[in-house]
C-alpha cells in the first residue's frame, strides 16, 4: 500500500486549534444545512432515551411469556391483542418490549466494545509510529494477519471456545476492531513526528511518554473520534450477526439478532417476529451513521478521508 507520510502537517495542527465557539457554530450550521443529520441525531437520542427508560414505555418484562398469546399479529390485524401493537413471538412475549430492552444490549455492547478497541488500537498505533523499527514491524504484521481473517470469523472462533457471555462478547468485538484505530493513529504520528512543535518539545527534553501522550495524542484525537462514531454502528451490526448465529448474548436476554433468528422458523405464519427487530437495527445504525457523517463534516479529519 502507499503511504502519504508527512503531508500537510501544518494544516493538521491548525485545524485542531479551532476554538470552541466556531466549532459549536459549525456544528449547528451543519445540522441546519443537512436535515438528515439533525434527524439522525434526534432519532439516536430517542433510542438512547427509550433504552434508558425502558420499563416506563413497555407493558411488561421482556422475559414474560404467555402461551395464550403466542404469535399474535400487529395492531392492524383483527387477531391482534392490545397492548401488544407489534405482535408477539413464539413464546407469547411482547415484541415491542423486547425491542426496547434489546436496544439496551445493542447500545451498551456497541459503546463498550468501541471503548475496548479504541484505547488498545490507539496505544499500539502511537507506540508503533513513534518507536518505528522492530516494534513497528511487529505490530503492523500482526495487524495485517488479523485483517486477513474476516473479523466475524475470528469472533466466531473465540466465542465458540470461551463460551457465551456479555463480557466475552464485548472483549471479542473490541479485539476484532483495534486494527483500524492502530493504523490511523500510527499514520498520524508519522506525520506529526516531522512537525516543529514535536521537534521543539524533543529539543526541550520532553521524555518519550510525555511526548506521546501529552503532545501527540491530543493531536490525533479528531480522526479517532470520527472513527469511533462509525465503529459503534459496526459493533451493533456485528453483535446482531453473532447473536443471529447463536453466539451472542445468551437467552433469554433480548437481543435483536437472536430475535431475527427466532422468527426464521415462523416466516410462513408470523412474518413480524423477524421483521421488526431488523428494522430496529436498520434505524439505529442509520442514525449513528448520520451522526458520524455530521462529525466528519464538522471536524473534517483530513487524515482518514
Amino acid at each position, binding site marked *: 500500500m502507499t503511504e502519504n507520510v508527512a503531508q500537510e502537517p501544518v494544516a493538521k495542527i491548525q485545524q485542531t486549534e479551532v476554538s470552541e465557539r466556531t466549532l459549536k457554530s459549525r456544528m449547528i450550521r451543519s445540522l441546519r444545512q443537512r436535515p438528515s443529520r439533525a434527524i439522525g441525531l434526534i432519532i439516536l437520542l430517542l433510542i438512547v432515551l427509550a433504552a434508558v427508560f425502558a420499563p416506563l414505555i413497555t407493558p411488561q418484562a421482556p422475559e414474560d411469556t404467555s402461551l395464550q398469546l403466542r404469535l399474535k399479529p400487529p395492531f392492524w390485524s383483527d387477531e391482534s391483542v392490545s397492548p401488544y401493537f407489534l405482535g408477539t413471538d413464539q413464546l407469547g412475549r411482547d415484541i415491542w418490549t423486547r425491542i426496547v430492552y434489546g436496544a439496551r444490549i445493542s447500545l451498551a455492547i456497541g459503546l463498550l466494545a468501541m471503548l475496548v478497541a479504541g484505547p488498545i488500537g490507539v496505544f499500539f498505533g502511537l507506540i508503533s509510529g513513534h518507536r518505528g523499527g522492530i516494534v513497528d514491524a511487529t505490530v503492523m504484521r500482526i495487524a*495485517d494477519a488479523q485483517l*486477513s481473517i*474476516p473479523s466475524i*470469523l475470528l469472533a466466531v472462533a473465540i466465542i*465458540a471456545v470461551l463460551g457465551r457471555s456479555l463480557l466475552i462478547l464485548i472483549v471479542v468485538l473490541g479485539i476484532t476492531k483495534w486494527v483500524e484505530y492502530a493504523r490511523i493513529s500510527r499514520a498520524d504520528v508519522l506525520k506529526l513526528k516531522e512537525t516543529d512543535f514535536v521537534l521543539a518539545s524533543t529539543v526541550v527534553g520532553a521524555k518519550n511518554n510525555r511526548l506521546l501522550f501529552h503532545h501527540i495524542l491530543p493531536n490525533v484525537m479528531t480522526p479517532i473520534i470520527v472513527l469511533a462514531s462509525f465503529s459503534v454502528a459496526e459493533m451493533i451490526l456485528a453483535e446482531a450477526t453473532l447473536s443471529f*448465529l447463536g453466539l451472542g448474548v445468551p437467552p433469554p436476554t433480548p437481543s435483536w439478532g437472536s430475535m431475527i433468528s427466532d422468527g426464521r422458523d415462523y416466516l410462513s405464519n408470523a412474518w413480524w417476529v423477524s421483521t421488526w427487530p431488523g428494522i430496529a437495527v436498520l434505524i439505529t445504525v442509520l442514525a449513528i*451513521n448520520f451522526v458520524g457523517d455530521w462529525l466528519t463534516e464538522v471536524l473534517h479529519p483530513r487524515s482518514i478521508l
Partner: protein
Amino acid sequence: MNLRLILIRLVQGFITAFLVFTVVFFIMRLSGDPTLLFLPPDASQEDIERFRSEMGWDQPLVVQYFNYLGDVVQGDFGKSLTYGGSALEIVLERLPATLELTIVAFVLTILIAIPAGLIAAVKPNTLVSRGVMVVALLGQAMPGFWLGVMMILLFSVALGWLPTGGRGGPTHLIMPAIVLGSWGAAKITRLTRAGMLEVLGDDYIRTARSKGLPERLVLIRHALRNALLPILSALGLTVGIMLGGAIVTETVFAWPGVGRLIVQSVLKRDFPVVQVAVVLLAVIFLVSNLVVDILYTVVDPRIRYD
C-alpha cells in the same frame, strides 16, 4: 510493478498466512483438551488416557504446535474429528460452492455499483440518483442476514418464486449472491460517486470536454480511470468482507460452502477443519489483495512501490 516487489509481497503474505495459522491454532485450543467431547460418557479412564495420547493431546501445547507444523509441512493437515477423513479434503470439497457464490456476488457488485455510482455523480439531484443513494445508504446499514430472511419471506414464502436455500441451479444463487454482495455494493457505489464528483471538477476534465470529446469518453476514459484508485483498494477489502460474509450468508441459505462448514465445525470443536478452512480463506484474501496491488500499478502507472 517489478518482479522483486512482487516477491517481497509474496514473502510478506507468507509470513502473514503463517501468523494466521499460529493464532488460529492457539485460539482453538484455549478451551483445553477436547478428549471428552469425542468419547461416550461411560468411557473408562483408561480409554480416555489412551485416546488422549493417541491424539497427542497429553503433550504441552507448544509441542503439539510443532508436531502439527511438521505434519503440515509434509502436506498433512490432520484428520477431521467429526467426519474422519482428511481435513484438507473436506474443506476443499466445500470450496467450489463458496467460490461460486463469492465470485457471482463480486461480479454482481461491480456490475451494479460502479454504473450506479457513476449515474449518481453525473446526474445529481435527479430521481434516479437520489434513489441510488438511498438504496446504498440502506444497504450499508442493513444486517445482511436480515436482508436474507426478508428476501426469503418475500420471494420464497409469499411469492414462491425462488427456493429458500441449498445449492442447485441459477435460481438458488440469486438471493445468496444479492445478500452477500449488498454491503460491498453499497460501499462501492458511494465511493464511486464521491470519487467521480471530486474528479469531475478538475481542469483536465474541462480540457477534455473543451476539445470536443464525446461525453461518454470523457467520463469513462478520463474521469472514471482517475476515480478508480480508491475503488480498487475498496474492492480488495470487499473480497475479505465477502469471505467473512459467506459465513452468515451460507448459514441463512443453507449453502454448502466453507463458511457454513466453519460455523458447524466451530460448534463441534473440529479443530483441524476450522484450522484449514480459516487459513485457506486468509490465503484467498491475501492473494486477492496482491492482485489488487498489481492492478493499482496498471491503473495508475505513477505508483511504483519503492
